């Protein structure tokens, strides 16, 4: 995981140095290509996992729970912050 953060940091520095050229380098085409390829292989990795195939329903239910709670948490905290600022 530390290598990911290191790569991310190096990318940020490079983007700051390159400025407008950095927007092209980090723009739609390389971004979309990386995302598509990564998602493809991630899907293959998930599909080959017997554990996931056997527990697909529970993963689905867990993801619903997480999405509801994480969204609700963000909305609640934003609402409370908005009230704090306006009071």
């Amino acid at each position, binding site marked *: 995981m530390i290598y*990911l953060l290191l790569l991310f940091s190096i990318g940020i520095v490079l*983007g700051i140095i390159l400025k407008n050229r950095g927007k092209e380098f980090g723009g739609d085409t390389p971004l979309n290509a990386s995302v598509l390829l990564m998602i493809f292989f991630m899907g293959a990795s998930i599909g080959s996992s017997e554990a996931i195939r056997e527990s697909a329903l529970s993963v689905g239910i867990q993801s619903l729970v997480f*999405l509801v709670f994480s969204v609700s948490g963000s909305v609640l905290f934003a609402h409370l912050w908005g009230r704090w600022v306006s009071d």
Partner: protein
Amino acid sequence: MLGVFFPSFSNSYSLYGQIFLYILIFVIGVSVGANTGTLKRALKVLKKDVLLLPVFSIGGALFGGILGGIITGVPLKISLAVAAGLGWYSLAGPMLSLVSPMWGALAFLSNIGREILSFILIPFMKGKKGALIPMAMGGATAMDTTMPMITRFSGEEYVLGALYNGVILSMMVPILIGFILSF
């Protein structure tokens, strides 16, 4: 389907997925660095309530993640990492799949669900506090996919705020997930 029909190559899928994840992270870093001008402009123009919104969006999501973990029995570290995706399913899923494909699937599904839910609910979420709630709901997607919804239903004056929030949260997603998973 490739994984289902050819499960014996699972190590290769995982390896290639990791390689492209590293490439993606690097490209995202460049994109974020190239957009620091937007952040500087936002810091001069935006008011305090919007400037500090990312803190509360992240705090709320992580709090929700803890509750989700308690209910589902998912380990705390994974619960926090899933919630730290902030709607960026194409990054959260692959990052968590480095730990296990199961958690990768969970992160992917819950964060894509967050984006879909945002599309459905943002039109109803504008309140007296302007676009704070729609921006918080959109999370990292506030800078691109949900920005049109936010500006359409909350007002064009929130374009910069949505962009600022989205950029900050997008910047924080890999840092947060990486930090949480490093424990």
